[in-house]
């Protein structure tokens, strides 16, 4: 059975809206992330980029640090964060790189990398005003 979710572009940019789960309470909080096909490759070990504050709140356990180049430069800590996308029946932890808030896209909470997008069918599905994911 195919499931699809679409979001209107935000300032012309593709976005993904998902929930982050707080480990202690199970509370889900929504976040809006830039869907960035130019963020890494299908092989990179991270699926999201979030702010330090969000990872401090939603992070479960760390892993080794990552170095990034291009629009985000530096060496950053990484951790696992539990995400949920109910429409697509997604509920799992993902690897997240943690960067200072100032390095994130303006007015957005973070970035989903190409590895994350590539785990779905993604695109505008024939509507230029929207971006979506399909399983």
């Amino acid at each position, binding site marked *: 059975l195919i499931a699809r979710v679409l979001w209107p572009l935000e300032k012309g940019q593709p976005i993904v809206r998902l929930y982050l789960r707080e480990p202690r309470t199970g509370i889900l909080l929504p976040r809006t992330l830039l869907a960035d096909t130019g963020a890494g490759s299908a092989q990179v070990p991270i699926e999201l980029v979030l702010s330090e504050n969000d990872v*401090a709140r939603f992070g479960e356990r*760390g*892993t080794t640090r990552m170095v990034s180049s*291009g629009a985000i430069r530096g060496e950053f800590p990484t951790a696992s964060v539990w995400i949920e996308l109910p429409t697509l029946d997604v509920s799992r932890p*993902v*690897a997240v790189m943690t960067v200072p808030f100032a390095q994130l896209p303006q007015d957005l909470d973070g970035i989903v990398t190409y590895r994350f997008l590539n785990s779905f069918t993604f695109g505008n599905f024939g509507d230029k005003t929207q971006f979506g994911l399909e399983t």
Partner: protein
Amino acid sequence: LKGQAATGAFTAHLVEVASQAAFVSEPNSLLFTLDWIRPQAPPGCTPVKHAFKLDCMNDQAKNHEFARRINRETRSDPASPYAGKYLGIADEQVVVIADSLADVNAQLDAQGFGAHNSLWVEASADYDTPIAFWSVDFKRMGGG
């Protein structure tokens, strides 16, 4: 507030305030939002405002070194038993071998390892090559 005693009293007050917060039922929690005001940080953690938890999750130098070594060895040996697995690392040893990130976290939790003394690694992933973000200037994209 003047002097060390007063500062200590103020800190105690903050800890008391924090102890009334929702998450204090597990006082050693690394994910407790106000952990930075706790007078005693867990080993390896620096009680710096808002940086405390990230330190705890990422400042495990020996485990990190071990994880990087295992990761490099696994990538250079496709026949490694760790190939394609997620590994849980604690005390500079592989203590969990799992097929998913969810499993490795669950098994580390079940064995009593916390975020401050364990980490995970995707054994076959390339952590050495910098991740390239090819997007143009994010701030300009956002209209700022």
